[in-house]
């Protein structure tokens, strides 16, 4: 029946630890070997980690990694903006695919203030944004300047769209606006796009 004969229960051969809580004492037993091994491994890991990151500094510290990541992003940004010239933007403004993508972005975001006609305050004095049609510009009318205005926003309430739309969609939306203009047309800088308004 049973493989093991009945045996008397083990006596408390192990020493009792000196503490008791609510009358409950504790034997000084050996810890399980598997448990000890996990402890030794974590200790070993701590030394390797310390040696790798803090003694030899083979591993980059957080500051280095953040700086590296930021500079990588900055480089990528510069690379995409660096290629943006007035000529390139004018070329995009004649490209149907770019202009159509820009129209979608414009109609989802910019229409709120500049209206679907792009004429803003010229069409309706109650509109928030200035007209984007014609030769009068407040913050510069060269294609690259328009990209800068859209990206960084204006003190009169246009928010910086850079973080919202990103470089590609801003380029498209500027191409869409430029599709209403011609290369080489005059640019007149005014304080306000609406005559008689400060």
């Amino acid at each position, binding site marked *: 029946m049973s493989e093991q004969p009945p045996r008397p*229960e*083990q006596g408390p051969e192990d020493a009792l630890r000196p503490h008791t809580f609510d009358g409950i004492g504790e034997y000084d037993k050996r*810890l*399980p070997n*598997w448990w000890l091994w996990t402890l030794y491994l974590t200790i070993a890991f701590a030394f390797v980690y310390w040696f790798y990151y803090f003694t030899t500094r083979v591993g980059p510290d957080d500051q280095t990694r953040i700086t590296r990541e930021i500079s990588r992003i900055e480089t990528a940004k510069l690379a995409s903006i660096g290629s943006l010239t007035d000529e390139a933007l004018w070329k995009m403004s004649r490209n149907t695919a770019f202009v159509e993508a820009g129209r979608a972005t414009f109609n989802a*975001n910019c229409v709120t203030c500049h209206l679907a006609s792009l004429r803003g305050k010229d069409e309706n004095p109650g509109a*928030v944004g200035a007209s984007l049609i014609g030769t009068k510009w407040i913050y510069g009318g060269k294609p690259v300047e328009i990209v800068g205005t859209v990206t960084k926003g204006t003190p009169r309430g246009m*928010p910086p769209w850079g973080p919202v739309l990103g470089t590609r969609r801003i380029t498209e939306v500027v191409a869409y606006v430029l599709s209403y203009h011609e290369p080489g047309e005059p640019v007149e800088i005014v304080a306000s796009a609406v005559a008689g308004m*400060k």
Partner: protein
Amino acid sequence: MPTESGRPSAPPAPSLDSVTTIRADGSKVVLHPADVAGRFARWRRVVGWALIAVFACLPWIRAGGFPAVFLDLATRRFHLFGSTLAAQDLWLLFFLISGFGFSLYVVTALFGRIWCGWACPQTVFLELVYRRIERWIDGDAVARRRLESAPWTASKVGRRALKHAGFAAVSLLIPHLFLAYFVSLSGLWSMMRASPAGHWGAFAFVAASAAVLYFNFAWFREQLCIVLCPYGRLQSVLIDDQSLVIGYDSVRGEPRARRHRAGDAAAPRAGDCIDCHRCVAVCPTGIDIRQGLQIECIACAACVDACDEVMDRVRKPRGLVRYDSLSGLAGRPTRWLRPRTAVYALLLAIGAVVAAAAFSTVRPATAGVTRMVGAAYFYDAATVRNQFFLRLVNKLDKPQRLEVALRGGTPGAALTGFGAPVEIAPMGEEVRPLVVAVPRAGYAGPFRFTVVVRDAGRTFELRRDAEFLGPDPDLLREEAADAGARR
């Protein structure tokens, strides 16, 4: 140190003073629980396979165009039985977790560690899958013990290789199925056919999980329940004398005597326990239940089945080892209703009601209104205006048209840019500028207003409150007067 019996493969005698499965030198004992048959074994098999079936089938069942349970972390959409939650609904998780907590309190106070023995994946997979593979290849407990101490012959190597290959196969299958809950079966299938380089995270997750499962089920086993599991520890403090546990009726069983038969005149005063050690032989954590309630006991009821079978054979009533409370085992009645169970149940009920109310607020879309960066307000000769971003999230897998309107606020306050409904792609997200303007003449200081978002069919409505900020109206009037005077 060898065990007292001198047979290295036999576990030490169970005692209350130490864990049976850890020898005095710290090494782990490999337990070989004997086969057990009986009503609880049968029902646990039914429950266990039903749970495995649920786990294995859920990714295959579709509801509302998605797998019944699909926690799509990549796009942060959580599909549960036809309804879809977005990352914005994560706060509901609080009710899920606290609900689990309260359920645990109630169930443990009433029925003890019923979870451990009947529903825990550790027990279910170990007993129904891994130990079955071991049983098929290595034979019963006696054969397994013999094989363990046998020399490494070709036959033993072959058996061991076969067994561990089986363990490894199951250990790989489980995390693959688990991953399907997060990437869907089609996503899993395409990942499995592609190179791991394309999805390192998922590959590492499955590989590491498989390794941990293999280690756990092939070797670690009962150590998880005894040493690692925080749930087991927590339950120990939730149990009282009235909770259902598995116990030995010492009043009826003692003094135990071997070869005792009913009506045996030689032992008139002997108890019902014939000291056959069947309850110890079948225990998956290596304890002797006759020593009382112990922390190692996972309430699997194997010893109940084992003892019932023996009692049947010696023609004694069943239940010498049984499900009962400590109070019941001592011959007193069990009180099911007591302050502890009442309070736990009340908390669970309150939690369930609040959770139901919270889940009823979930809509097929979410809306958020945040102020644009830059100046808080702008004004010109005609208007005072505030600029916000409205973030709309479509949680359905079909396009939605949402109407946006303004409610409340100063008379004359108007929303620009939302003449037409906003069309949002399936599962899409749209951020639109939302400009609120008030005619300068009608402006009378800051006010609160509500942005109302409705679907075209008017089946639901979302409301978001926001504050319109602006200058002191008196200053604005003074400035206008100055400008008029200068002109």
